[in-house]
């Protein structure tokens, strides 16, 4: 009997018990879908993280006052002397490997245009900020030295703010109000895309450091010249560790921290931070994939179980087929093909489900969809293998039946 005939016969048999066949397949469907979804979503997340690192600016160190941040209590934050613009300048002057050192303060506030308003994050930045953080202009120009000096009421808009307030089009020269202070837009930033989970980097308005200090972020929380974050970009990636040590030394000296005393600031390598997060996510993904493969095995056992039931139920049919000339091989192949068909169908449906899930997740998270075709092919091959492995025993059991006994069974 040709393979095609065998497949037809097995399809007929599967159709007769449609509900059972579908339920049996479900194990494989879920297993395959889970494995592929995990791997694909993982790949998409990885690609997104790569892009984030790119967007953050490679080789960027972030210095913040306080000895610890990002989880855990911020110790010695208020009490310690905060960073200042002089610190930033000193770092740039004293450490030759530093390509750009930028001071930035941050706060939030409402931006109003006509009757539209939008709550966003306001950055007070200096001249090095755009370089250090890898920002590029979409339209207009950067702040001019005089604007930095005088604390001019000019602003650069992030892409999200442009979209929310203006939709699209040219925003240069537009008048806006930030926290009720009138500003002129001089430029718009190129979109970086979503970053750091829910935190949208493009949802931002930038103003000159001095402007923010005076009018927007207020003097109550910041002394003049005090800086919340210093961003340092290093020309040579290999020099990162060295530069980190140098920064520590310079700042300890400037802040007069005695030997044995704790740092009043902390330095973070932003690339490393993202990478650590990636690693955590990869491990999580691999765990999920492992769980998913267990469900594949469980699905395979389900197939074997149903095939055994089916062989028992169809003993008479087996006897009859033998009586009219089926050889042991024919019976064996019939049941084997049935099991493989179940698994392959389950695998194919699983792939479709996985791709649907992946596209959905990517849509929500704003990740790229990166279908891992090797994994898809492996999944198909693997489900066929499960069919053969778990179908073999029931098929052999069917083929080994004695025709007379089989015909006589109920």
């Amino acid at each position, binding site marked *: *009997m040709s393979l095609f*005939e065998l497949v037809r*016969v097995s399809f*007929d048999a599967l159709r*007769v018990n449609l509900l059972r066949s579908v339920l049996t397949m479900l194990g494989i469907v879920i297993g395959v879908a889970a494995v592929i979804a995990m791997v694909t979503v993982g790949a998409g997340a990885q690609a997104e993280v790569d892009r984030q690192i790119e967007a953050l600016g490679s080789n960027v160190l972030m210095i913040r006052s306080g000895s610890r941040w990002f989880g855990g209590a911020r110790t010695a934050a208020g009490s310690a002397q905060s960073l200042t613009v002089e610190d930033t300048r000193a770092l740039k002057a004293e450490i030759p490997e530093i390509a750009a050192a930028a001071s930035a303060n941050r706060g939030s506030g409402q931006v109003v245009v006509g009757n539209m308003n939008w709550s966003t994050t306001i950055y007070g930045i200096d001249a090095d900020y755009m370089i250090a953080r890898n920002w590029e202009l979409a339209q207009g120009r950067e702040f001019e030295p005089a604007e930095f000096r005088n604390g001019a009421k000019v602003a650069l808009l992030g892409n999200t703010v442009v979209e929310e307030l203006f939709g699209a089009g040219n925003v240069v020269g537009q008048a806006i109000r930030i926290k009720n202070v009138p500003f002129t837009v001089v430029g718009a930033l190129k979109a970086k895309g979503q970053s750091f989970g829910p935190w949208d980097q493009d949802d931002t308005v930038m103003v000159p450091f001095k402007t923010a200090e005076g009018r927007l972020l207020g003097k109550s929380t910041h002394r003049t010249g005090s800086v919340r974050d210093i961003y340092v970009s290093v020309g040579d990636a290999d020099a990162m560790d060295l530069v980190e040590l140098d920064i520590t030394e310079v700042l300890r000296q400037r802040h007069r921290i005695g030997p044995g005393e704790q740092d009043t600031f902390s330095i973070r390598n932003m690339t490393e931070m993202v990478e650590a997060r990636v690693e955590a996510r990869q491990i999580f993904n691999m765990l999920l994939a492992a769980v998913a493969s267990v469900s594949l095995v469980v699905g395979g056992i389900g197939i074997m179980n149903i095939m055994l039931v089916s062989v028992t139920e169809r003993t*008479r*049919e087996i*006897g*009859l*087929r*033998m*009586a*009219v*000339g*089926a*050889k*042991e*091989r*024919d019976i064996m192949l019939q049941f084997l093909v049935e099991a493989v068909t179940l698994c392959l169908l389950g695998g194919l449906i699983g792939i479709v489900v996985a791709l649907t899930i992946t596209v959905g997740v990517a849509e929500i998270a704003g990740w790229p969809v990166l279908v891992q075709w090797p994994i898809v092919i492996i999944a198909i091959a693997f489900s066929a293998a499960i069919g053969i492995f778990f179908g073999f025993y029931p098929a052999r059991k069917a083929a080994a039946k*004695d*025709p*007379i006994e089989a*015909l006589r069974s109920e």
Partner: protein
Amino acid sequence: MAFLRCHDVHKDYLVGTETVRALDGVSVAIDRGEFVSVMGPSGSGKSTFMNLVGCLDRPNSGSIELDGERVSDLTSDSLASVRNQKIGFVFQQFNLLGRTSALDNVALPLLYAGVDRGERTTRADEALARVGLADRAQHVPAQLSGGQQQRVAIARALVNSPDMLLADEPTGALDTATGQEIMRLFQALNEAGLTVIVVTHEAEVADYARRILRFRDGLITSDTLDEVRNVAV
């Protein structure tokens, strides 16, 4: 030379520690074109005899020759081929595949004979026509009467043009009138040249045959030839 020749055939079954001698030295020769009925009390070995002759099983000792070939020591694959090519079975319980059309049921032996799909359909249609069910090809067994189901089963037995038709109590599950229809069908097939062996408990059924083998305790106790066919039927 006889088409079917059994010589001193023994078949034992082991039940627990006891050996049941289902056939205890059966010798018989049946020619091509004969219509033989097999009778005897329950447990006398009729079905066992049919199974051996039908190549579904092998004897413990003795020899069975079919068409000059010693089938008693063939491998199970070769036996399957013989069953497929030379023998048609009709069972008491019809043994049709449920939810499968009459046509596909009839075509089943051709599937294992390696006949392609188009020819399978043609030949299955022909076989169904021979048993008078051409118009029921697409019906599934549940949509057919008992007699019709048995005729589908006969069509299946005929579809591969066997040399010999074996029927173990083919009328056992049918009412008398339907049973007689089936027997008349066998008679017609026999008259067209087919060798037919039928197991039955009923004398009226046996009367269709020209030769009656009577079994008792695993032995053939009488082998009678009716020169004149019973005309009462």
